[in-house]
């Protein structure tokens, strides 16, 4: 049984890659990288069972497999469809996909408040990016938008349900990272909402991660709310000796002050290692941290407009500057 696993071949938008059996189309696309990667608003690799809901990652399977080359009649969710050997997939090269995705973006936006100018998530919001890349210029929706009151769920987290796109990620976080889930999805259809139902405060040690997994500004860090636009902050990789979590975090600095702490995310916005509330909310002093150096930010991100990497290159002791 020591034989190597037989790799299988899949082609996405004309680019071919070899992957392990059981890989989803989305993850195969991520192995190729670049333009062939479908956007994902609900799928989140570290969270088991996530995905399939937002429908932004729909792709066209133009050839099922080498064995059964028939195309799949419907567009499929690439995050939850596994590849077959010889499968051919169209992402942006399919008109159907581009059209359907535009539709999904419109659906996601019709009840979204579009309050980006006052939203803390602006600049690192997946919905903003999605709408920019795949959406239409204007909305055809002319009715009243869904609204909810903003509520505090615990000392550190603000729930602004009006912005929520019901990706369910925060529910998976509570299910998988905390001993007892205390919030969930209430009601149904377009009245569905994230809630604790009885204004419970969420104070489990790992619940702060719901902020990081939220693709929009529905769950925000109260210690950071309205302090700064993210693109005025400078993210630094840092670590600490934490008994509860791995202590690997990103410090978002304003000058020498820690404005907020988040987990480290990869290029798809997925957390590499979840962090505890203590690290996130309470360690706001540089003495708590061992700063490793500037966080690499994609040059496409608005955050990179700071060009601070040139100012504070890696290995420069940051603490004595400024």
């Amino acid at each position, binding site marked *: 049984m020591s034989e190597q696993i037989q790799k299988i071949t899949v082609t996405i938008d004309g680019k071919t890659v070899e992957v392990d059996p059981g890989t989803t189309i989305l993850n195969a696309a991520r192995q190729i990288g670049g333009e062939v990667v479908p956007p994902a608003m609900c799928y989140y690799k570290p969270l088991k069972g996530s995905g399939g809901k937002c429908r932004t990652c729909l792709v066209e399977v133009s050839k099922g497999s080498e064995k059964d080359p028939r195309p799949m009649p419907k567009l499929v969710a690439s995050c939850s469809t596994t590849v077959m050997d010889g499968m051919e997939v169209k992402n942006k090269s399919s008109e159907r996909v581009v059209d359907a995705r535009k539709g999904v973006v419109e659906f996601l936006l019709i009840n979204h408040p579009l309050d980006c100018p006052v939203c803390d998530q602006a600049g690192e919001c997946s919905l903003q990016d999605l709408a920019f890349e795949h959406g239409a210029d204007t909305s055809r929706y002319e009715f009243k938008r869904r609204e909810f009151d903003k509520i505090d769920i615990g000392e550190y987290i603000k729930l602004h349900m009006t912005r929520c796109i019901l990706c369910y990620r925060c529910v998976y976080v509570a299910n998988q990272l905390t001993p*007892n*889930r*205390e*919030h*969930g999805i*209430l009601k149904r259809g377009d009245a569905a909402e994230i809630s604790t*139902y*009885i204004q419970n405060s969420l104070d489990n040690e790992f619940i702060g991660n719901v902020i990081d997994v939220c693709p929009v500004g529905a769950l925000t860090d109260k210690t950071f709310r309205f302090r700064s636009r993210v693109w005025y902050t400078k993210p630094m990789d840092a670590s600490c000796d934490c008994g509860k979590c791995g202590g690997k975090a990103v410090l978002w600095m304003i000058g020498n002050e820690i404005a907020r702490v988040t987990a480290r995310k990869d290029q798809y916005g997925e957390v590499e290692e979840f962090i505890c509330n203590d690290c996130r909310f309470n360690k706001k002093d540089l003495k708590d941290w061992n700063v490793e150096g500037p966080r690499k930010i994609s040059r496409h991100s608005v955050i990179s407009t700071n060009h601070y990497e040139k100012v504070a290159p890696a290995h420069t002791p940051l603490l004595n500057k400024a």
Partner: protein
Amino acid sequence: MENQNIENIQFPKELLDEVQRAVSSFPEGKQKSALIRTLHIAQAHFGYLSTPVMDYVARLLHIQPIEVYEVATFYSMYDTQPVGKVKLEVCRTGPCMIEGAEKIVSYIENKLGIKDGETTSDGIFTLKTVECLGACGYAPMLQAGEKFHEHLTEEKVDALIEQYRLKPVANYMGQE
């Protein structure tokens, strides 16, 4: 409505047995499957599903309260707010609309002086419009408690409102 103090939230023996029967129809450890039935029993007994009632159900079935809230707010038959003793649920979908469900609704509204979703001041009637109840061939219709009243006319509505006013059956299933 009923006193909803937490201390008073307790099923009588026969209802606990009913819950137990539901639980035992599922394999060991799958008692959550009895949740929907238990909530029906609770709603019938306590009048509606208040938070203490739902918390009680959660304890009975050894599940988290949020799991009960999620379910209780998903299904349209559950009331998480107080309602009247008799819920008049008028179907208004498809064939019922063709056969004049809207007229029946406004007739009841005028007669009882309440709007869709409201309860009469004496606490007897709640009017609720609902979607298809599976009586399309016998339209228009309404459901009161467990009972289906079909081929409705204004006279029939008069009669059944009179009947329920004299004897307001609880929304409990099975009592006729």
